[in-house]
């Protein structure tokens, strides 16, 4: 059985000032198996983030439904952990307190929390920074904390909305390896939205390519590269072949975006 089922989910935004309603997302169907790492690749504005937010329950679909373990999603919940592109650590909490946030909301005792928090601090390599405020951390460290915060809650599925989009190239590469390493060890179902082709291939067991707005699924590419993956994989011939294929796919869509949108 699929872990996550997206059935005919679409999203239409009401028109601005009596204008035509805007279709952001055409009906999308997607089945995600347990422990799959799926990246959703698409040009900006294609509705991929909207799709992820619908899965998270932060937005309601105009049509269709989302099922997690057979249960319909109606509102956000701790079973779908999310990492955002913007830095969303709670600035009034330390790194350790941020990671413990979900556990505390669940009413877990402090003693029990401490052990879990320590293990996730370790997992994302932030030992020694437990008592720092978020503003004292670099962007990469903040996103590592955000990943630890989402994982500490032990969600059924991890949703990531361009989590490394604001980071510089080198940091982004390291973060990809870190997240992939965690996934290889811990087996988690992951839905990862990105517009970066290399990132999409490197991380995924399956890449879903979306069309330009209004978005729908254009292709569904299985990535059979072996694990554990090392960054040198990005220069291998197999990787380059996949990259060439997806670049072609996404280029057509990016062109359409540029041509159809007013300057």
């Amino acid at each position, binding site marked *: 059985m699929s872990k996550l089922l997206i059935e005919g989910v679409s999203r239409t935004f009401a028109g601005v000032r009596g204008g035509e309603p805007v279709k952001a997302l055409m009906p999308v169907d997607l089945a995600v198996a347990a422990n799959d790492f799926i990246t959703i690749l698409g040009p900006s504005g294609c509705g991929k983030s909207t799709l992820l937010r619908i899965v998270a*329950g932060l937005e309601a679909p105009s049509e269709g439904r989302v099922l997690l373990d057979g249960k319909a999603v109606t509102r956000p*919940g701790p079973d779908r952990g999310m990492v955002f592109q913007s830095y*969303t650590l709670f600035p*009034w909490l330390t790194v350790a307190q941020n990671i413990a946030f*979900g556990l505390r909301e*669940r009413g877990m005792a402090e003693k029990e929390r401490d052990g879990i928090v320590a293990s996730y601090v370790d997992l994302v390599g932030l030992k020694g920074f437990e008592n720092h*405020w978020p503003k004292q951390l670099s962007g990469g460290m903040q996103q590592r904390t955000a990943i630890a915060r989402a994982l500490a809650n032990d969600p059924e599925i991890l949703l990531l909305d361009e989590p490394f989009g604001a980071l510089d190239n080198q940091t982004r590469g390291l973060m990809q390896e870190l997240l992939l390493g965690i996934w290889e060890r811990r087996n988690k179902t992951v839905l990862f939205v990105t517009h970066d082709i290399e990132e999409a291939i490197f991380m995924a067991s399956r890449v879903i390519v979306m069309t330009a707005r209004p978005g729908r699924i254009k292709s569904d590419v299985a990535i059979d590269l072996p694990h554990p993956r090392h960054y040198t994989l990005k220069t291998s011939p197999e990787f380059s072949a996949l990259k060439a294929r997806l670049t072609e796919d996404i280029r057509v869509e990016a062109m359409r975006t540029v041509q159809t949108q007013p300057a």
Partner: protein
Amino acid sequence: MRPLYPVSPGIRTVLGISFFVLFVAFWAWITLGGHVNRIFLADPLSMLRDGWRLLVEDRFWLDILITIWRVFGGFLLASVVAVPLGIAMGAWKPVEAFLEPFVSFARYLPASAFIPLLILWAGIGELEKLLVIFVGSVFQIILIIAVKVGSTRRDLVEAAYTLGSTNNGIVSRVIMPANAPEIAETLRLVLGWAWTYVIVAELIGSSSGIGYMIINSQSRLATGQIIFGIIVIGLIGLLSDFAFKAFNRWLFPWSLA
């Protein structure tokens, strides 16, 4: 001079102090130099002499203490009512829709115009003074806090929901801590305004306090005492503001740039 170019801390201090020096020098020149009538404006030296006499012989420090108590009492009363209401208005839109029009209207009612009514209702005792400050502060605090709370970062709220927060959890563990420094800043600002209300309240129908001393001095043309009273208010305001700022910094180390 290059626009927006920062000034070094040393020069900043020197410049700041030199204006005070110039100001007092000008004041001394027009008064001691005989350019204005002594009846209308006392010179700096007799102001200090009058002030010293006030403190030593007339027990003016008791008036100062009474005024301080009134400011903080009235301000505390207003805060206790206004902060929860402001948070509720910012967090829950139906509450805002219910209260916002009235509060916006009430905010423009001048506190000083309420003094005659408040004297009728509460006499000229302490309660009336507290109420003047309360009326002057409470609506301002409510509105400013409601606006700040209403603009809480939505991404933090969304993150908390995906971590399992309930609606009440969002209010008490996201909205309130996220806005706490801004709320404290608002209170610091309004405390400054409370100082003006207390003096007005003491100018009318009072038998103690700094404002009472000032109005009392007017009838005796003791301009030195009046100026001393005004300077005392300024100094206490400055000190309390400074203390409040330091307290906020200590309370919210995470919000410092």
